[in-house]
C-alpha cells in the first residue's frame, strides 16, 4: 500500500454519509453548467439545487424523467419522475432533453450503476455472461449515450469490490474503454465528443482518473475512512497520489439549505 498524507479539513457538524456525498458532489458542480440527472437520483438532484443556492446560481438541471428544469425540490422526493419535481421553471418532454443530451448540450451528467471499472466504464445492464445472465440489471437508460456529454460524474453509495471491479461484465456506459490508447482512438474516430468520466463519489471517498493512463485515482477519503479501508473495498489497484486529503465536511449553512429541501429525510 502506498503511503498517503492525509490533511484533515476542520468542521464539526454531524451529518450523514449521503449528506456528505451530496455536498461533495455540489462542490464539483460549476456555475453556468447544464446538468442531467436520472433514475433514483435524489442525491444528484439535491446536489444540483444545493449548488444553485450556494455557489452556482447560473447552473441549470433536469430532474430526470419528469422533465422538470430547475426543480425547487419543494420538497426533495425519491423518484425522478414524481409530480412534486414539477414545481420548477419549465417541463421538457423526454425526447427533447434526451436529444439535447445526445447532441452534447449537457456539461455534466450524474449517474450510478451496478459496476464501475478502473477505466470508468459502467454497467447497468447485466452481471455475468450475456447469453445466460446470472443477474439481469434494469437496463442502461441514457447511459449508453453519454459520450457527447462533457463530464460524467458517478455516485456509488455502496463502495465494495463487487461494484468497483477490474473490468465490467457489460459496458453499458463507455468510460475510457480499455484505457488511454483505445479512448484516444475513439476520440480520433469522432465517436467520443465528451471528456468521459470525470469523478466518482462513493460512500468512502472521491476518485478521478489519472490524466495519462485514464485509470481511477484517489483524490480524497471521507473523514473517518482509512486509505486501507477504501483500497480493500476496491476490486483493483487505485492510483494513489503522494499527497491525499480528507473530503471537506458540509458547512452548517450547506446542511441547513439541504435539510430545508430534504424535509422527508431521504439523505439522513
Amino acid at each position: 500500500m502506498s503511503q498517503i498524507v492525509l490533511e484533515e479539513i476542520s468542521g464539526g457538524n454531524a451529518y450523514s454519509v449521503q449528506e456528505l456525498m451530496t455536498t461533495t458532489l455540489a462542490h464539483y458542480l460549476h456555475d453556468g453548467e447544464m446538468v442531467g440527472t436520472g433514475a433514483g437520483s435524489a442525491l444528484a438532484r439535491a446536489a444540483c439545487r444545493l449548488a444553485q443556492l450556494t455557489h452556482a446560481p447560473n447552473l441549470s438541471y433536469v430532474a430526470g424523467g419528469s422533465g422538470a428544469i430547475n426543480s425547487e425540490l419543494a420538497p426533495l422526493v425519491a423518484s425522478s419522475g414524481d409530480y412534486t419535481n414539477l414545481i420548477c421553471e419549465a417541463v421538457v418532454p423526454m425526447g427533447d432533453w434526451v436529444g439535447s443530451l445526445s447532441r452534447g448540450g449537457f456539461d455534466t451528467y450524474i449517474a450510478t450503476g451496478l459496476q464501475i471499472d478502473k477505466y470508468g466504464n459502467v454497467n447497468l445492464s447485466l452481471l455475468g455472461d450475456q447469453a445466460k445472465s446470472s443477474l439481469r440489471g434494469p437496463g442502461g437508460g441514457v447511459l449508453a449515450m453519454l459520450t457527447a456529454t462533457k463530464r460524467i460524474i458517478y455516485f456509488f453509495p455502496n463502495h465494495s469490490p463487487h461494484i468497483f471491479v477490474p473490468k465490467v461484465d457489460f459496458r453499458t456506459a463507455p468510460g475510457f474503454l480499455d484505457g488511454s490508447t483505445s479512448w484516444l482512438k475513439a476520440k480520433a474516430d469522432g465517436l467520443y465528443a465528451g471528456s468521459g468520466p470525470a469523478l466518482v463519489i462513493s460512500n468512502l471517498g472521491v476518485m478521478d482518473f489519472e490524466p495519462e493512463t485514464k485509470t481511477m485515482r484517489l483524490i480524497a477519503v471521507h473523514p473517518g475512512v482509512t486509505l486501507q479501508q477504501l483500497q480493500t473495498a476496491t476490486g483493483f489497484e487505485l492510483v494513489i497520489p503522494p499527497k491525499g486529503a480528507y473530503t471537506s465536511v458540509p458547512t452548517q449553512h450547506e446542511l441547513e439549505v439541504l435539510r430545508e429541501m430534504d424535509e422527508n429525510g431521504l439523505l439522513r
Partner: protein
Amino acid sequence: MSQANGSTPPTQGNSAPNAKTNEAQGPIRQSKQMELAAAIEKFVPDGVESLAVGGLFMHNNPMALVRELIRQRKHIKRLITSPAGCINADLLIGAGLVDEIVTSYVGFEHLGSAPAFVRFAQAGRLKVLEVDELTLLLGLRAGGAGQPFAALPPGIELSDVSRANPDFYQPVHDPFTGATRLATPAIRPKVALILCQQADIYGNAIFKGSVFADRELIFAAEQVILQVEQVIPTRQLTKNPIPVNVPGYAVSAVVQAAFSAHPTSSHRFYHYDEAHLQEYIQAAATEAGFEAYVQKYFAEGGETEYIGRTSVIEG
C-alpha cells in the same frame, strides 16, 4: 354517382352508411368512449405482434388496461416500454404473456428491481432487447413519421448495448459525409396503452403533469387506447385548447377508470402507493407469490373491485 375527388360537395345520398343523423342537429359524431373490457377485446388481438405501455417508473402507468390484458389472457409477442418500464411491464411478464421486450429500463427506481422481469430474463423465458433511451425515442419518432429507420448520433458504437442487440443497431452509410453510423429501425407498435388524466369522448386529451415519452408512443402506434381519470366535455377543451397535447385523431378508444393507475401515480391526481408496490415486489419474486398477488387483487371482478380491495387498510 358519387365522385370521391373532393371537388363535389357530398349529397345526402352519398353519406356514409353508418353515419347516424339527427334531423334537428345534423350528423352525430361518434364517441370513442368504451368500457374497459370491450376496448381491450376490440383493439388487442390475442398474440398481438407488438404492444406498448406508457408511463415512466411508478408514474402514469395505464394499469387498468394492463390488468384487463391479464384478465383476458392476451398474449403479446413483443412488449415495448417507454424509456422506463415498471409494474406495467412486470405484471404482463409475470403473467407469462410476453415473449420479448424492447426497453431501456425495467425497474422500480429507488424501490428496487422488477421481480418478474429479472426472474423471466434470468430463466431465459424472456428475450430482452435492450436499447438506450435515445434509440428508443428516435425509433418511435421514426415510426410516427413513416421513416424506415433513424440514424443515431456517433458514440453508441462504444457501448455493449449496441453490440448485444443487432436487431436494433446496424451500421449505415452516411451519404452526406461518407461516415459509417449506426441506425435503428422505426418502431410502430400495433397498440399503445396510455394513461393520461383527462380526455373528451373523442380522445382529445390532456396530460396534467409530465408527458414522459407518451406522445412518441401515441404518434408511433397504429391504435391507441387511452385510460383517463376523467372524461370531460369537449366544450371545456375548446375554450383553451393549448394544454390539449393529444389530438383525438390519434386515439382509438377512451376508457374512464378513475384511480386505476394504482399502484402507480397519476400526475396531479394521486401519488403512487409505495406500500402496495413494496408488497408486489416482494410477492412477485416467486411464481407462486405472483399468482397469489393476482388472485388476491384482480383475477375476479373488474377495476371497481380492484380499487375496493386495494383501499382496505389491513392491521
